């Protein structure tokens, strides 16, 4: 927040915010205003995405912050709180309120609340074409007059209206404050509001100055937890001695449904505006979307179609991405060999070449090869969201997933996790409810990514007859699915208790996303991922390289290296599972990237070729030990790129450490159970 304050004070620059309902073309408007140059981050303290950018207009620099899309401005969701706090605390020069012209009444409900907060509004009346098609004619001049704010008709998806919007924003930046809009809450309530207002002005004037006394009074009557907290913070006595008493009295008069009464009045206000400014020619309906919904949410077809779309998404992200991954791998190979000969030529010290080749190029490269998949995933998710299908997916999967304590959209992140957990965890972002998203993030690592599948296939091939090997690998998947649902349910019940929010989700009309919108979205998300996770990945890659190469002179990853010593140190702990120090070292290497486990065995057994390595290991381990090792690999800490995104998505080190911790404990217990049951059944 300090940063935006500073931004605002840059000489002559202005700060504006974009507010509006979801599915109104908010991102399109933001992209249209700012172009490609955007910053994506999180709002401080919460996992709500913050997008900001800027544009120049007539020599003035205008900073733009895209507030989360919300239907209202209560304190019930992080999205709404973030939007509201920004407007109250940062006091942007202008708030651009994007309004869906084809769905005016519901949109004006938010507009009314923005006006009540005394925000300087410019109304971007978007989707004029859709409104037109549905037979609505809107008197924009009258709307502007009633709302006391400029109204700019737009078709953002076709780039129409931006010039007028910029002009209106600039004008509004210069103009003076408008009188406060007052919704009439009825005689009885108005009397209470007035009393409360005077009380607040008299006893909590700094707050009244910041938020406006009337707004505070209305919020108190709505029993707004954040505002009550703010007032208590200012002066506990005011609240406890008089306000509380006051509100209790009001509740006696109006019953416990003051919020209902207030919302009703606001809708009444919005409805009044609609009646004055909209004339309906015909009542054309959304036939096309309705007909598509009949198919896509159909009793029998809904789930199969969803699964088909998931399958296609997976294919696009991982199979479609394969050629690009191959190119990146090839490039990395070329870079590595070039770097190697260069380092030889300049006679670089061995630590320097080790650092560059092992840590930088190979270590970071291991993660970098997934970048094409991650980009494709961002594009696929943006497509699903922008087209309107994501809302249907949540509806279609809601009942099945709710039985397992999961959100309808969690399924998508689990499927993606089968390819790679990094984008899998990131896909959970589409879930708006905090606790549902946290559970989805925490359980994603239980789904084996393709790298872990590689390890399973390798070990199954080494220790089991060909006709059984497939079933062995399949048993890993089965165990994963069972654990996802058991652990998911446990977490939902004990870590994030509370009734699941009822599923109420808007189904926006289907539309074809624009290529430009998808490209901007994908580019900025990928950039943000590389910047954030990149640093962490780099540090861990160096750390692992250091552990494997030092003290100086030891064989890379050998018994005398630090990593070897670590392996020995943990050996007693792993002994019950039948793992020797070599297995432990391989697992530590696996933190880098799961497929590295096999390469690590190659180094440890001094065998490069895969078939020979399989034979060498078959000499040392029993099939039971190998199976326990597979179970451990399935469950223990995800690779550190995944840990990095868990941190990014939970925005909390506590939960990140919890994720790592519970997986380690679970892995140990499960592997030990395999050994116990195996021994009991007579396997060695």
């Amino acid at each position, binding site marked *: 927040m300090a940063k935006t304050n500073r931004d605002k004070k840059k000489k002559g620059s202005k700060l504006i915010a974009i507010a509006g309902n979801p599915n109104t073309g908010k991102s399109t408007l933001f992209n249209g205003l700012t172009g490609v140059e955007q910053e994506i981050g999180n709002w401080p303290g919460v996992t709500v995405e913050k997008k900001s950018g800027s544009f120049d207009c007539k020599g003035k620099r205008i900073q733009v912050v895209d507030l989360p899309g919300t239907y209202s401005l209560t304190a019930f969701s992080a999205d709404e709180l973030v939007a509201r706090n920004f407007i109250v605390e940062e006091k942007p020069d202008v708030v651009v309120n994007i309004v869906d012209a084809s769905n005016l009444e519901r949109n004006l409900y938010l507009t009314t609340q923005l006006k009540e907060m005394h925000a300087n509004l410019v109304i971007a009346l978007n989707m004029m074409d859709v409104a037109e098609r549905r037979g609505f004619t809107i008197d924009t001049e009258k709307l502007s007059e009633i709302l006391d704010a400029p109204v700019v008709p737009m078709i953002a998806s076709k780039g129409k209206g931006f010039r007028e919007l910029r002009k209106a924003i600039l004008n509004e930046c210069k103009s003076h404050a408008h009188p406060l809009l007052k919704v009439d809450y009825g005689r009885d309530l108005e009397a209470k509001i007035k009393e409360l207002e005077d009380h607040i002005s008299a006893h909590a004037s700094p707050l009244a100055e910041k938020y406006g006394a009337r707004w505070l009074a209305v919020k108190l009557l709505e029993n707004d937890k954040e505002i009550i907290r703010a007032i208590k913070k200012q002066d506990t006595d005011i609240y406890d001695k008089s306000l509380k008493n006051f509100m209790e009295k009001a509740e006696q008069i109006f019953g416990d449904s003051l919020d209902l009464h207030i919302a009703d009045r606001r809708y009444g206000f919005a409805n009044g505006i609609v009646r004055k400014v909209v004339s309906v020619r015909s009542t054309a309906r959304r036939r096309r979307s309705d007909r598509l919904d009949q198919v896509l949410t*159909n009793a029998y077809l809904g789930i199969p179609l969803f699964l088909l779309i998931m399958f296609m998404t997976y294919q696009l992200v991982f199979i479609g991405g394969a050629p690009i991954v191959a190119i990146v791998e090839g490039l990395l190979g070329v870079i590595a060999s070039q770097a190697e000969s260069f380092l030889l030529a300049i006679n670089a010290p061995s630590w320097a070449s080790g650092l560059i080749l092992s840590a930088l190029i190979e270590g970071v490269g291991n993660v970098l090869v997934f970048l094409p998949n991650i980009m494709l995933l961002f594009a696929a998710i943006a497509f699903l969201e922008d087209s309107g299908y994501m809302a249907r997916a949540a509806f279609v999967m809601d009942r099945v997933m709710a039985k397992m304590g999961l959100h309808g959209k969690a399924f998508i992140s689990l499927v993606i996790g089968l390819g790679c957990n990094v984008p899998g965890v990131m896909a959970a972002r589409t879930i708006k409810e905090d606790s549902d998203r946290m559970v989805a993030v925490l359980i994603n690592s239980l789904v084996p990514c393709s790298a872990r599948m590689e390890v399973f296939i390798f070990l199954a091939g080494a220790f089991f007859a060909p006709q059984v090997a497939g079933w062995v690998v399949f048993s890993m998947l089965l165990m994963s699915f069972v654990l996802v649902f058991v652990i998911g349910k446990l977490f939902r019940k004990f870590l994030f208790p509370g009734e699941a929010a009822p599923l109420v989700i808007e189904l926006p009309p289907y539309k074809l996303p624009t290529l430009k919108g998808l490209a901007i979205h994908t580019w900025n998300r990928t950039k943000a991922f590389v910047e954030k996770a990149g640093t962490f990945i780099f540090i861990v890659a160096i750390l692992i390289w250091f552990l494997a190469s030092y003290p100086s002179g030891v064989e890379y990853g050998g018994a005398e290296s630090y990593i070897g010593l670590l392996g020995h140190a943990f050996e007693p702990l792993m002994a019950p599972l039948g793992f020797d120090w070599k297995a432990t070292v391989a697992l530590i290497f696996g933190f880098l990237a799961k497929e590295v486990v096999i390469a690590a065995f190659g180094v440890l057994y001094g065998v490069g070729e895969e078939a020979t390595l399989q034979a060498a290991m078959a000499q040392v381990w029993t099939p039971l030990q190998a199976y326990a090792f597979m179970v451990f690999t399935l469950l223990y800490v995800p690779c550190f790129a995944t840990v990095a995104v868990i941190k990014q998505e939970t925005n909390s080190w506590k939960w990140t450490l919890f994720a790592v911790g519970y997986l380690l404990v679970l892995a140990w217990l499960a592997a030990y159970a395999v050994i116990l049951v195996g021994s009991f059944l007579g396997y060695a």
Partner: protein
Amino acid sequence: MDTRPLSDMGIGEKGVVAELACGRLARQRFLDMGFNPGTEIEVVGTGGGRGMIVRIKGCCTVALGFGAASKILVRGSV
């Protein structure tokens, strides 16, 4: 006229939101989405028993899970 839960209505039926029979949190969600009492509502789909797809305020389409739909009480037809 009697009220009945939205979840009991069939495709094509219309009515007016009469009451929100739920806790504060859920009520706030319903209100924000436009289910304030007095709002006209029309059932346009059921997602094959998964819940309800309704049109409110004439143009906004909203999907509700079965649990959510049973908490909205609707009065007659308009």
